[in-house]
């Protein structure tokens, strides 16, 4: 809702538009508006609340309780009435911001009560996680497809709405200088880091069932990987872009059975310190059983088995209660082929790296060697840094704002397609199964450290190391 309000502030909402909220509980329109007002005032990225914009925005907010079939009938009547009043031609966007286990029920009800409307378009926006594994994701897709066609389903992965994530495509395909070196020939390896310093906060119940693999790797990380590794699409539209992404996901070498222990590491945080404050262990979080085996950390070594990436590993790590919040993709290039300068002179020289920072401060940096200004030759690595905010002097739009506008316009480029979700589950399922059937629990790591020692071993075996993210 803060995203919608901010779109209103930016005059990006359609001229004729309304929001109908629904839930099991009963609320009047006014109670609903007041509830949202408080939430938006607290969470909006623009503060304080612009009262005048809010007032006119709030006039378009309605609420219908849907505890039972009669509720859905009421909803249909309200929608039809509003269509008439607003002239919206029964164009409807259904946004499911509910617990995932309710998706099937709600979509079925949308179908059963003919909420789609007879004219106009209908789309449904679904939040992650989409399914719990490959099988449940397929079942959910089947249920949804009894009501919506695949091109009407918008699966949100909010990472794709982030400016820098979209910028990956711009960097790669709007510039001439990067693509020629974007392959096994020049790239030694790729590191994708999605680090969070927060713990599970109030989401313990959800997280306990999910874990880092399902919460982050299955969606955000694999999407980032696909964008970095994909071939140039023929057009910038939903079909061409997603076709190329899914090819990458299909080319991901499966990690299963005995390979899991060599290529995948999980972990769970214990007590430690974050930003100077003592924090509890995962198993001490409210709502987490004291013998929980849920992973809060995942590191993977993965391969994209195709012509472009043969022999170039993609290292992935993500976790909670890591020392800092940081999401980045680092393309680590090979070292210069001939060592022209003496070893002493180049002690401070590291291989080139192009780093795409997604958060906290969005930007791009390029690391290269430069001569230290002294007599004789001494070489140091320097970082040339492009900072999104400082260069464009504006705040990047929030990911949800971008995605909601896209969904309203019917552009699905930044949403995840059925086959992508399917491939993503196909990749993570065997790893999760191997972990579930292993008698050992996840190795522990102290909160505020970069994960368990096994994760370091995973990359150090190959003579490489994790970046200082």
């Amino acid at each position, binding site marked *: 809702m803060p995203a919608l309000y901010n779109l209103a502030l930016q005059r990006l909402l359609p001229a004729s538009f309304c929001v109908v909220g629904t839930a099991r509980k009963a609320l009047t329109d006014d109670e609903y508006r007041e509830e949202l007002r408080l939430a938006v005032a607290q969470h909006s990225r623009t503060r304080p609340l612009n009262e005048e914009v809010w007032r006119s925005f709030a006039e378009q907010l309605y609420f219908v309780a849907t505890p039972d079939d009669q509720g859905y009938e009421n909803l249909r009547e309200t929608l039809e009435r509003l269509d008439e009043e607003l002239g919206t031609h029964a164009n409807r966007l259904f946004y499911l911001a509910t617990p995932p286990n309710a998706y099937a029920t709600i979509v079925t009800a949308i179908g059963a009560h003919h909420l789609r409307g007879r004219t106009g378009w209908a789309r449904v926006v679904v939040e992650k996680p989409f399914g719990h594994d490959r099988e449940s994701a397929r079942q959910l897709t089947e249920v949804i497809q009894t009501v919506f066609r695949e091109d009407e389903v918008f699966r949100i992965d909010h990472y794709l709405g982030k400016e820098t994530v979209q910028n990956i495509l711009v960097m790669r395909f709007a510039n001439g200088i990067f693509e020629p070196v974007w392959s096994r020939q020049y790239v030694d390896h790729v590191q994708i880091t999605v680090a969070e*310093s927060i713990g599970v906060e109030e989401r313990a119940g959800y997280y306990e069932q999910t874990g880092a693999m399902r919460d982050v790797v299955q969606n955000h990380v694999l999407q980032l990987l696909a964008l970095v590794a994909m071939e140039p699409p023929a057009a910038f539209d939903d079909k061409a872009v997603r076709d190329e992404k899914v090819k990458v996901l299909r080319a991901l070498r499966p990690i299963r059975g005995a390979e899991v222990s060599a290529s995948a590491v999980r972990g769970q945080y214990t007590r*430690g*310190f*974050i*930003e*100077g*404050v*003592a924090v509890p262990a995962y198993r001490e979080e409210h709502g987490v059983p004291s013998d929980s085996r849920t992973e809060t950390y995942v590191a993977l070594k993965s391969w994209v088995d195709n012509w472009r990436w043969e022999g170039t590993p993609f290292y992935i790590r993500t976790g909670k209660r890591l*020392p*800092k*919040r*940081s999401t*980045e993709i*680092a393309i680590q290039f090979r070292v210069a082929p001939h060592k022209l300068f003496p070893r002493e002179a180049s*002690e*401070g020289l590291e291989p080139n*790296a192009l*780093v795409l*920072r997604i958060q*906290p*401060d969005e930007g791009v940096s390029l*690391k290269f060697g430069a001569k*230290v*200004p*002294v007599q004789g030759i*001494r070489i*140091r*690595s*320097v*970082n*040339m*840094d492009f*900072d999104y*905010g*400082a*260069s464009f*002097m504006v705040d990047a739009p929030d990911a949800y704002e971008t995605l909601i506008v896209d969904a309203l316009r019917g552009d699905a480029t930044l949403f995840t397609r059925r086959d992508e979700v399917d491939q993503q589950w196909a990749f993570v399922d065997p790893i999760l199964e191997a972990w579930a059937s292993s008698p050992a629990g996840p190795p522990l790591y102290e909160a*505020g450290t970069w994960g368990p020692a096994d994760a370091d071993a995973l990359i150090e075996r190959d003579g490489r190391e994790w*970046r*200082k*993210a």
Partner: protein
Amino acid sequence: MIVVDTAFWGARANGVAALERELVRLRRAQSAHARELGRTVARASVLNLIVYAEREAHAKRAALSISELALRHPSRAIVVLADRGAREGVEAEIEMHCHLPMADGATQVCYEQILVRARGDSDKRLASAIIPLLVPDLPVFLWWTGTPPMTGRSFGDLVGLADRLIVDTADIARPDVALPGIARICAQARGLFGVTDLNWTRLTPWREMITAFFDVPAWRPFLDRITGVRVGFGVDMDGRDIHPSQALLFIGWLASRLRWRPLNALAPSEAGGLLFPIARADGVPVMVRVRPRFERGLDEGDVSGIRVQAEHEGQRAEFVVKRQPDERHQTTTVLIDGRTRWERTVPLPSPAIVELIGEELAIIGSDRTYEDALAALVRLS
């Protein structure tokens, strides 16, 4: 509660996220200002520098030095001010401030300064406040003001983040304790991080001049025939505080390069200095004296002059380097059989902390010559 000088350190930020927002705001303001002048600000950083201080005066002095270096070493400096003296029961707390100081002419580069103030028993939590502040993937220098503790979690944690540890034994009154301690840190650091001492950096002009003597073919044979060395170092007028570390490092350096061995243990000489009975690689004794001298303008502990005596094929040679009273020049003299054969005056580089730090930040990794000198010195004493 002592309040830090926010005019100097910048406004207090409530946590890392708030600090980042504040830095973005400051950067934007700087960038907007630069645009008006038709310039751009390059956010080119080459290093992270963590400064550890236990007194605000030291922290400020260090911060001023680093900001002067912004042009040479654009960096993010994280100044840690730890009130270790805080009373028991004071709640451990970490406070952060940030600031983008602009040195003259340095408007095109970005230098970020962050103050992390730790109060109470923050030993365990300090590193967790610093890691999120480091610029990713850049080398980390740790400048430890005062005597580095050999134990304690925060020292271990901070050193664990660092690629290079910089100490200054000029601030340390007990070299007999501190130097072996630093040598132990060096031994543990092998392959993990480099160690250096600003007192070693101060010796560079002296080592250069001494080395230059023996580059001359006619004088080269004297190098293996040294019979005595005298090193003078500054003390205050009443000669109470003695800081001989710098002079001692010079002896360690000669010993490590020339493979000298101890004959006896370190013994105090009658004049308040130190006397080292040392054997050359060929077993012949070398008399080495390190003595304090009072000289106007000479900082305590700084080397004032070096005299190397040698005998070769019946000739007695003396190689002398002296600091001029003007503090800005060195004179080098060579005497053969008491007759001056050569004399020259060269400029003496500024001993300002900013210059020394600048030198050390240009080096990544370990300085084997220093580590060898320190190890040799510890063996001699």
